[in-house]
């Protein structure tokens, strides 16, 4: 990542915190709802993220269970993406960003000094807001992860991995006869599914999705949502979304963030029908955000 780009992101984040123009310490320190689950795959406790002097998120504690879909909702700049990017240490690429607290994947502290981010990111895959396939062929896009991590024993095995990943991403039937075509030549929805296939190909335990449908039309969105549903039998999926309907449709649990705090978390059905916290209520009924 270029320095200009890094700086741009830093500035943007700092500006967002400034815009909020609120002393985070004034907010209630307690998250409403049950943050923990049985057999968590990932646990985060008292996570705080600073961009320079600005506090982006504070005191966020949350468990992510095995094979569950959890969605993060909240107004822009509330820190949900920031928290998501803490989970595979993508925030490391932002220079001024400091993360404190305790985040564990299967009990191992991922911010321990001896942890290498490369294997971590292989276990916690990521799908970005804008579909970003590599400017390479469809095959190479999916094969790239397995190749660099040495997952395939030979070329035949690699082909199998690619096929299976594309099948699970629901893209195989559409691209199996043009695997050598550029990945960037696909439609937006297909590109995003290609990115999901790319994440699946390295067999992660958790897939993080940062507003994966915000650049897609409703039909492609429906396709992705169906895919998330199918994938949830094998992977834990964390999805950041601005669409409350989407959160309601795809996720088992929902977490509501506001101004850098995790306000409320709970089963999606309950949270949407009977929110415990007033702010959550205001947000989902459209009074602010």
């Amino acid at each position, binding site marked *: 990542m270029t320095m200009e780009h890094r700086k741009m992101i830093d500035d943007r984040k700092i500006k967002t915190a400034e815009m909020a123009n609120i002393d985070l310490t004034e907010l209630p320190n307690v998250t409403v709802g049950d943050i923990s689950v049985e057999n968590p795959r990932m646990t985060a406790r008292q996570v705080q993220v600073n961009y320079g002097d600005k506090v982006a998120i504070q005191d966020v504690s949350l468990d992510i269970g095995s094979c569950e879909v959890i969605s993060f909702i909240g107004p822009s700049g509330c820190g949900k993406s920031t928290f998501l990017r803490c989970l595979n240490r993508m925030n490391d*690429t932002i220079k001024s960003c400091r993360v404190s607290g305790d985040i564990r994947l299967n009990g191992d502290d991922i911010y321990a000094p001896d942890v290498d981010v490369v294997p971590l990111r*292989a276990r916690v*895959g990521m799908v970005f807001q804008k579909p*970003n396939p*590599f400017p390479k062929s469809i095959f190479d896009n999916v094969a*790239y992860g397995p190749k*660099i991590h040495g997952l395939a024993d030979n070329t035949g095995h690699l082909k199998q991995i690619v096929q299976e990943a594309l099948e699970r991403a629901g893209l195989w039937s559409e691209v199996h006869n043009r695997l050598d075509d*550029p990945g*960037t030549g696909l439609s937006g929805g297909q590109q995003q599914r290609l990115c999901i296939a790319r994440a699946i190909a390295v067999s992660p335990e958790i897939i993080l999705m940062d507003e994966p449908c915000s650049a897609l039309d409703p039909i492609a969105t429906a396709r992705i949502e169906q895919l998330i549903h199918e994938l949830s039998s094998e992977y834990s999926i964390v999805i950041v979304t601005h669409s409350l309907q989407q959160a309601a449709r795809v996720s088992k649990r929902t977490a509501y963030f506001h101004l850098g705090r995790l306000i409320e978390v709970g089963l999606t059905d309950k949270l949407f029908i009977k929110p415990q916290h007033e702010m959550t209520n205001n947000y989902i009924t459209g009074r602010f955000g």
Partner: protein
Amino acid sequence: MNDTAKGLVSPKIATERVAASMAKRKKRERNFQRLGRSAIAVALAFLIVLFVSIFAKGIPGFFQYYVEIGVEIDREKLDPTGDLTLQSLYAGDARGVIRSSLYAELDVEGRSDKRAAGKLISQGAEQRLRKLVYDDPSLMGTKQTLRFALDDDVDSFLRGFIKRETPEKDRRINDKMIDYIDRLQAEGKIVYAFSDYLIFGSASRNPEMAGIYGAFIGSILTLTVCLLIAFPIGVATAIYLEEIAPKNRITEIIEININNLAAVPSVVFGILGLAVFIGIFGMPRSIPLIGGVVLALMTLPTIIISSRAAIRAVPPSVREAALGVGASQMQTIFHHVIPLAMPGMLTGTIIGMAQALGETAPLLMIGMVAFIVDVPGSVTDPGTVLPVQIFMWADFAERMFVQKTSAAIIILLAFLITMNAAAIIIRKKLERRW
């Protein structure tokens, strides 16, 4: 509503005023377009004048006048020891063989006549005869019609640069020579043909024998050294500064200095080369190795700046995608950033190489302006380069060097265009891989 009313105007008045302002706007647009067209016309006119003048002077430079005479290839005279070695051939009297054939052709007797006739043919003729029999000894003892270059003064006379009307003592060829030339021409023995000396000859004080071959090879060797040094160092520097180096005061100072280096006059790099490589390290002068290193120093800033721009243009989403699947920083750079930035890096390299190809000043400083007849066989043999050769020829007094200079300029341009075309083709190939 009166005229002095402030604030928004009514839609009706607005419509009228917009209509009224249209004519003025359109006129401005037309004037601007006219200005642009005339600017392009002026630029094109200059370009045409440039090309017409270079080609008008240079095309004749690709041809020269030859004389065809029947030569008795006498083994005893050419090859006194009889073993066909170069030593023996050089000991032999090739000049005598050619001259006696010419005397026979023109029927000349007497010393002054012979001297006049002898001056017609280039000094390169004997060398050509030696080479001919060395390559094909079976010609010995036969009579062959051979083609020899005419002396440059004769060539200039035939082209009309030396006028017949000029009084004899003021021109470089005398009446007797003109008489011989007329006779040879009447017999159809003087031919105007493509000049092989220009392409395959090396530096020479005899204009009719001078060619660009040595300088051409020198240019290729120098540019190869330059490319091999400047491209890897330039690209590596750009990647380090752009992707890896922390942004602090030191990297900032380095950046500023690289940008400044791009504006340093090239002759300064020549002085640096002279002081460091020749002065301190005591390396020999005039060698393409040092020329290449000096030109590499000169082209480095260009390559670094354009490579950094190319790297910066790689979308951040690609880097995120690579990091997201668990690629390390090095893998992200080498698998994704460099392939995408490569066309831009190559563009910078092409521009740098084109600069290096046309550069004269720094090479003068390190002695590549020396008069070197031998073609350099390696980067450590003394040599010169095309633009320096052109510079030297432009300095010589003989009339024939004017055409040779223009011809060499055309060859330099052709070299440049070929090099750029090749680079563009390579770039397009890389781009097609998305």
